[in-house]
């Protein structure tokens, strides 16, 4: 887990100090910093108000069709940003650069603000706002002085997640020809310049990521504002929008058109244009599509199985035997959340070439990368799954005369099964839509949906990419839907 990180840092530290300073103090690094940080701030600045507005409209107003909008606002999360950017860039090449990147990552990551803020709004006791109203506050003053302060942890957490995701995003920026740390690292890898130079860049990127992650954890941990509510609550009162309904519907309509309509519409458009000039020499054949789909599926299944298997003991230990060691293990695992895939991939490439040559460009190495990246994702569900199977239920089983194995099979497993299934499904979706590490580490000859879309799009063969993108999106949306239907309650 820590190996790729330590390796990267060690590699960077290998450079003599003056040289390192010189390497970092270049206009290139400055430009990358301006690009990356600028886009990060802009995305946060756009997604935060839009996310809060959408959450408020859905949770607190009588907006018609709000249940549909609640789903539409969350769905973009299931569409990988590089697919979104493929859709936009194929519309017009004018969308290259900063503004295109802002549109793509903004629409892709808005749900990261929307979801926690909507949950916080749902969980807020309506009596709080009512007390404020009776004390003389109008609706807007109520929002500013009571609602917003209570939303702060959820909002800040969401904003930091957006920032983190912008930092680690690669595919979308590469397609939009927008240079950030991740695209630069990839370029250096392609030109064979992997060394202290790129390790230094990676360390700078890593520092920003871990800072975001640490802040996010701190915000989430700040439980000083824990709710005071006990017992049952009435559902919140909804504001009547009146004439404001129309603009509210327009906002949502425009948003859905941008975040879902464009990607889906563009892919459908390109699907219908087979014999255009936008195809490749390789062309589109059913056999190749099947190959790529099978490649994606097998990698995703293996990745999901491996990751959940790794998460099992970790989750069990942290739930049942909480202590300093367990906390340390857990924290380490969560680091994966803040580590850019490209950094992990590059480190694994270097490691494999130097130390474990036979593993280089094999499936196990790629699956190891998936496990490192998606362990946190699996761990969240696995943890809550074991928390459902409380120790006292196990004890009750033992007292009733069951041996430990029978207890595990008849009590723990049935109780934890939905959570474990959810964990596997989450990782499955994440692997299907993953591009960066797959691109760098996939075995020669193995094609996946993501790498095929990438290959075709970088050569502007938009029509050729469409079937793969469509299959991938169908897989991702389909499994997300199943996930939400089957495990929605568990993930609560």
């Amino acid at each position: 887990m820590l190996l790729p990180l330590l390796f990267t840092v060690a590699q960077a530290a290998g450079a003599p100090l003056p040289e390192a300073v010189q390497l970092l103090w270049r206009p290139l690094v400055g430009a990358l910093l301006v690009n990356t940080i600028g886009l990060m701030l802009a995305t946060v600045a756009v997604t935060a108000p839009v996310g809060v507005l959408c959450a408020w409209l859905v949770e607190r107003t009588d907006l018609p069709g709000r249940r549909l909008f609640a789903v539409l606002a969350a769905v973009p999360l299931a569409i990988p940003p590089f697919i979104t950017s493929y859709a936009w860039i194929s519309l017009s090449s004018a969308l290259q650069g900063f503004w295109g990147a802002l549109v793509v990552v903004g629409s892709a990551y808005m749900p990261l603000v929307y979801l926690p803020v909507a949950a916080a709004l749902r969980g807020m006791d309506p009596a709080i706002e009512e007390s404020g109203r009776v004390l003389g506050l109008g609706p807007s003053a109520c929002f500013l002085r009571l609602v917003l302060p209570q939303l702060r942890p959820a909002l800040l957490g969401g904003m930091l997640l957006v920032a983190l995701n912008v930092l680690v995003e690669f595919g979308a920026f590469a397609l939009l020809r927008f240079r950030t740390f991740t695209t630069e690292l990839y370029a250096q890898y392609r030109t064979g310049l992997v060394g202290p130079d790129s390790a230094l860049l990676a360390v700078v990127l890593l520092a920003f990521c871990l800072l975001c992650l640490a802040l996010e954890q701190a915000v989430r941990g700040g439980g000083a504002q824990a709710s005071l509510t006990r017992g049952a609550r009435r559902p919140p009162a909804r504001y009547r929008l009146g004439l404001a309904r129309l603009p509210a519907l327009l906002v949502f309509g425009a948003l859905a058109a941008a975040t879902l309509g464009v990607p889906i519409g563009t892919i459908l458009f390109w699907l219908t244009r087979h014999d255009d000039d936008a195809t490749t020499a390789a062309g589109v054949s059913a056999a190749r599509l099947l190959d790529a789909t099978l490649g994606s599926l097998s990698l995703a299944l293996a990745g999901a199985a491996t990751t959940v298997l790794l998460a099992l003991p970790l989750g069990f230990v942290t739930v049942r035997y909480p202590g300093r060691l367990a906390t340390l293990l857990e924290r380490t695992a969560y680091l994966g959340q803040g580590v850019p895939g490209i950094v992990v991939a590059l480190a694994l490439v270097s490691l494999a070439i130097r130390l474990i040559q036979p593993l280089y460009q094999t499936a196990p190495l790629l699956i190891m990368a998936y496990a490192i990246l998606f362990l946190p994702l699996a761990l969240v569900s696995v943890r809550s799954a074991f928390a459902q199977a409380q120790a006292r239920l196990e004890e009750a089983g033992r007292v009733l005369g069951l041996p430990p194995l029978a207890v595990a099979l008849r009590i723990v497993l049935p109780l934890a099964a939905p959570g474990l299934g959810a964990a596997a499904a989450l990782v499955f979706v994440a692997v299907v839509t993953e591009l960066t590490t797959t691109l760098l580490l996939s075995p020669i000859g193995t094609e996946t949906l993501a790498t095929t879309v990438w290959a075709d799009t970088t050569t502007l063969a938009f029509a050729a990419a469409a079937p793969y993108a469509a299959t991938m999106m169908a897989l991702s949306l389909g499994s997300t839907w199943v996930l939400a239907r089957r495990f929605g309650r568990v993930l609560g």
Partner: protein
Amino acid sequence: MSALLVSGLSKSFGDTAVLRGLELDVPERSLVAVLGASGGGKTTLLRLVCGFERPDAGRIAIGGTDVEGPGLHRRPERRRIGYVAQDGALFPHLSVAANILFGLDRPGRRDRIRAERLLELVGLPAAYAARPPQALSGGEQQRVALARALAPAPRLVLLDEPFSALDAALRAGTRRAVAAALAAAGATALLVTHDQSEALSMGDQVGVLRDGRLVQVAPPAELYRHPVDAALACFVGEAVLLDGEARAGAVTCPLGRLALSRVVADGPVRVMVRPEQIAVGPDGAAARVVTVSYYGHDASLGLVLADGTAVSARVGGAQALGLRPGAETWLVVAGPVVAFPARDL
């Protein structure tokens, strides 16, 4: 003048009529308790007075100003009322002092002294001012919520089952503190509750809400002693109901010939006796003990009279020690009893 005047108030949710033409008059500087069963419309009444919801019909005037009526709806923030929610609804992101001063204008919100005075008013130490509300017990939170409601000197304070979330040990103390604070502030208050002992002990007047109307509004002792019908008698306390025959200001029933507190027309009646009026004596109506529930300070007896009528009695703890199920004894009734015309049930 009335601090609150409600007339003809009606409200339905879907097909369910919750309030049907409710009338209520809360005089200034008094505490009126509205007693009703769960889901009986108590909270709806408060929410309508607060302005959180709009009635289907009726008028509401607060301090002589109309706030609700045909074509009139004054928003909650402009009604100048105080509101204490079921669990206090303290703002979790603000300190106790900031909570209390929340409803004041900007300079008022910086007035530490005022916060401390209000804390003192509700019987809490001034040192609590800087604490987060999470550090307070449920009863203390409820008192802070009252201080917050009283801070802007509202014309009327509404309390929505303010003690129901507290456990029994905290409830009595918090009740007394709240009643004292309301009296000290000279506030007018409307309290709704489903707990009859709470309503009787706190209210200057108690109104009983049934079928969307207030069936009786009276001082607690009057309500307990002279309920308007048998169902109400059972609702505000334990009651023994017996068939009897009224004649010339007295009634003959299985417990003997009893004096009536109020004259009713001669003829068949339903007699209501409170269990604490029934004493075990050396003579009187013969009865057999069926159950003894011993509470320490007193005990509740279940008995059967000679004609098979079941009655219950409250006796002192010491006296109950001598009684076992199956024991034969005699019952006498102390004080006048109430009779309802027999068609009442």
